[in-house]
């Protein structure tokens, strides 16, 4: 195929350069809320590793600890073993459902307030403003040649950013080992190399994501905006420019003149303050869009302007298209937080949470698993009996040693032997487990020579009882014969 002359177009650039966003300082309701969430989130992140929780002498006393070396996860009174990672599945399902519910009520508030990318970017903006000044100063500084002042400001800004990044990456390590010990080792250069490597990696990611990539993460990297767009509906409250009230845009004087002639005039004075304060640099007046993280800072900016020009506030507000229709019909605004979608999300949250609570509350401190030895499936002994082998694994999740008595029943005329478990009474075996440990116990069950097994396979029951707590673990397996 030949390309006709009219099909050869101008070659544009291969890429789209990010337009730098210079968010302006703003005060107001949503800004205050954003600060509160930011400091609470950072506070939780830095304080949690230092909370202590006494679990006895043999276990770590850190309240929240992901102990990879010993494959345990500690969360206050909960201790998760590797085979119980389904608790995390439950937590993730719960987190997703809560995200969906928050989206059904208030749109992408997670993005605007609580997402780590938002929290750290906001913190970095704060540092940037403190050192380089507000929007106009920063724009001027960017355009300026490299004078001593510019160099100093830039060095200071990046130094503080890197320090915050280091504090962020370093603090992440505190969740994996004893926090006070690591703190001391980290600064006396005695910490393990892997701690420095990970702290370094997370420092770098924090610095580049919060300092440089910023809104690019929301626009290009994050899957949630795409998923969210598919999950939202007409009733969710999103940051919305009330186009019915704002248009047609005109200056204050123009609007006064138009209104004097009893002509309709919009409240929007096209001051672009909503765009100036936006951390992702969108124009909310274009309607709901991918870049909008629902933080509400444009609401604060617009409210300030509306107050100044003595028009009603909330030209931009948490609102939806349904309300615009209502207003155009002359009805009052309405919000329906209770609707099938939210009821369903809430019910699923209650169900998931309920199941998790139930499983957690009825979780036992011990476990018994039984594996039938397959080779040989059974042995005919020298004495003429039939012997089956079983590999039992006991788990003790307590911080104290635990004693079990093991009883095997269901097959007539059997004797039970094991080199690990010692006989206690009535043919029962005693097994002792160290604190927080598992033990493999080979057990052999042999029938007396005169016993006639009626079937090739007979059910056999293993019952392990902790006489102190009365906790019972019952496992049913099979006894095979010729």
């Amino acid at each position, binding site marked *: 195929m030949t390309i006709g002359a009219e*099909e*050869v*177009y*101008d*070659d*544009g*650039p*291969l*890429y*789209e*350069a*990010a337009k730098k966003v210079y968010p302006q300082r703003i005060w107001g309701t949503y800004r205050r809320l954003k600060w509160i969430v930011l400091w609470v989130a950072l506070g939780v992140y830095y304080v949690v590793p230092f909370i202590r929780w006494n679990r006895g002498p043999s276990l770590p006393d850190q309240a929240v600890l992901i102990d990879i070396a010993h494959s345990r996860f500690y969360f206050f009174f909960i201790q998760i073993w590797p085979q119980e990672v389904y608790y995390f599945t439950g937590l993730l399902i719960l987190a997703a459902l809560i995200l969906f519910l928050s989206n059904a009520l208030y749109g992408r508030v997670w993005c605007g307030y609580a997402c780590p990318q938002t929290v750290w970017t906001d913190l970095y903006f704060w540092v940037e403003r403190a050192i380089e000044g507000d929007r106009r100063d920063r724009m001027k500084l960017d355009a300026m040649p490299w004078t001593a002042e510019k160099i100093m400001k830039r060095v200071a800004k990046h130094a503080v950013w890197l320090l915050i990044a280091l504090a962020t990456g370093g603090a992440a390590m505190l969740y994996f080992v004893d926090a006070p010990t690591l703190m001391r080792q980290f600064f006396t250069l005695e910490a393990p190399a892997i701690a420095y490597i990970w702290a370094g990696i997370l420092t770098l990611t924090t610095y580049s994501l919060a300092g*440089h*990539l910023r809104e*690019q993460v929301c*626009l*290009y990297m994050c899957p949630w905006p795409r998923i969210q767009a598919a999950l939202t509906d007409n009733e969710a409250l999103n940051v919305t420019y009330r186009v019915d009230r704002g248009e047609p845009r005109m200056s204050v004087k123009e609007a006064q003149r138009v209104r004097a002639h009893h002509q309709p005039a919009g409240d929007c004075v096209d001051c672009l303050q909503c765009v100036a304060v936006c951390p992702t640099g969108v124009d909310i007046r274009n309607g709901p869009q991918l870049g909008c993280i629902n933080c509400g800072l444009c609401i604060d900016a617009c409210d300030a302007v509306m107050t100044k020009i003595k028009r009603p506030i909330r030209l931009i507000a948490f609102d939806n298209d349904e309300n615009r229709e209502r207003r155009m019909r002359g009805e009052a605004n309405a919000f329906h937080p209770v609707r099938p979608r939210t009821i369903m999300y809430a019910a699923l949250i209650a169900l998931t949470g309920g199941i998790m609570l139930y499983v957690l509350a009825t979780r036992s401190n011990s476990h018994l698993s039984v594996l039938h*030895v*397959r*080779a*040989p499936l059974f*042995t*005919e*002994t*020298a*004495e*003429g009996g039939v*012997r089956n*082998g079983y590999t039992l694994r006991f788990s003790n999740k307590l911080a104290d040693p635990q004693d079990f008595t093991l009883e095997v029943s269901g097959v007539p005329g059997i004797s039970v*032997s094991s*080199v*690990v478990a010692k006989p206690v009474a009535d043919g029962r075996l005693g097994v*002792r487990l160290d604190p927080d440990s598992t*033990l*493999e116990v*080979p057990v*052999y069950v*042999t029938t007396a020579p005169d016993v006639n097994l009626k079937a090739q396979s007979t059910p056999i029951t293993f019952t392990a009882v902790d006489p102190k707590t009365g906790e019972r673990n019952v496992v049913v397996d099979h006894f095979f014969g010729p």
Partner: protein
Amino acid sequence: MTTDPNHVDKVSGQTTTGHEWDGIRELNTPLPRWWLWLFYLCIAFAFVYWIFYPAWPLASSFTPGILGHTNRAAVLADVAAGQAARAQAAAGLEKASITEIAGDPKLLELALAQGKAAFGDNCTPCHGSGGQGQKGYPNLTAGRWLWGGTLDQIQTTITHGIRAPGDPDTHTSAMPAFGKDGILKPEEIRQVANYVRTIDGLEPEQGVDVAAGKKIFADNCVACHGEDGKGNLDMGSANLTTKVWLYGNDINDLVYTITNARNSTMPAWGKRLDPETIKSLAVYVHSLGGGN
């Protein structure tokens, strides 16, 4: 990429690439610049990787890279590190006697784990993965032993083997090949084989003189197998009264055994394995259900 500056999509306000399918034009949505730079960085990384690590296949070899890294060396280093980590625990097995190991829960746990691994490496070809044995190779789970089933006896058997050449302490017993060496006539062998079946509670063949077999047994076999046929652990003579037969209790198997003798061998593992491994193996074999 060529773009069509004259055609702007009405909905999005974007220019198009000029590609059109059924009236739908592809929007021109360029990648962000940082993404492109990351892509170039990955390409640059590949070049650096080629310099440091094995990369390009050549006719008979490959470019080794200046770090000289090989996966095999990395695995060997890991294996050495694993052995060093186990050295301390293994030292405990080295010092303790086999009965001390069986009595100490920690040493026992270690010995069972190590014994299971060593059994899989060395013993399963003959004795089976679970010690169940096969014809000619003893079942270690049944409680029938030729040379004894206590911990010490098992340890000795593993160390010195059975009829192992070059080991002066090896277990040796030699049942005569009664038929091949002309000690008994085939008919006598059939008679004694049938008698042996009766002492194990099995039916003899029709029309065979079992009484004559009993006489032959008394004259030729009791010296080793005992009057009751229960054998003797000290000389490794088989107990003929159990349900478990090393070479089978079928009449033809018995006739073959008496005619030719079997006298199979087991290597002396003391020459091949270190003492801790042999102790672990003995503890493991003893634990398989048949130990005394």
